[in-house]
């Protein structure tokens, strides 16, 4: 099980703060493709990903227990 955290516009467009995905041993990119189809999130291509609070590369492999955060373009400050 992989936990996916959603923020900002992604949280609003899905109506969810958190999604649990039954998967392991898949890449960040594969996870994003999966979410894109299921939740109709075309903008996910422009979204960065953090795994366990660190920015991750598209090819990084995810395992059960990982916490993935989808990070749309940030606008703090």
């Amino acid at each position, binding site marked *: 099980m992989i936990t996916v955290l959603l923020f900002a516009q992604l949280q609003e467009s899905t109506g969810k703060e958190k999604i649990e995905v039954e998967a392991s041993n898949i890449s960040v990119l594969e996870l994003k493709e999966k979410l894109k189809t299921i939740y109709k999130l075309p903008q996910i291509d422009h979204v960065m990903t*953090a795994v366990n*609070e660190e920015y991750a590369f598209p090819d990084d492999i995810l395992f059960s227990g990982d916490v993935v*955060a989808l990070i749309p373009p*940030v*606008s703090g400050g």
Partner: protein
Amino acid sequence: MDKVMFNIVDEPIQIEELIEKVTRREAGAITTFLGTVREWTKGRRTLYLEYQAYKPMAVKMLSQIGKEINEKWENTEVAITHRIGRLYISEVAVAIVVSSPHRKAAYEANEYAIERIKEIVPIWKKEHWEDGETWIGDQLEKVPYPHGELSVFAKEDLE
């Protein structure tokens, strides 16, 4: 050090308290940057902003920025507090303080901090305009990741 140097809060930021954190006998210069809520942007009126953060990671990234600064500018001390939640006009969203023996480093490091915050810290702002609302970064006029996706990893040579 057991002072909290990097923080996300949902109450007004206490500036003097933050300055206190970086004050020390070796410092001759302390710079502060306050990002405040501006009423007008390109002819459009803001009523208030709503900030959201991925809090634990945001604190981690703020402290990474602090480390980057310590590596780039010798003998600097940095403290950053970002406020989240609803903020009205003129309220302070972010406060950055840097102390250093000499002023040049204090200015440069401070400006570096705000640039990096806008690149890597997972905080989002929703503008509530007089005539609508938008998550900033969602807008067409803002190119996502102006420095390329990888800039979030690069700790050096970013200026």
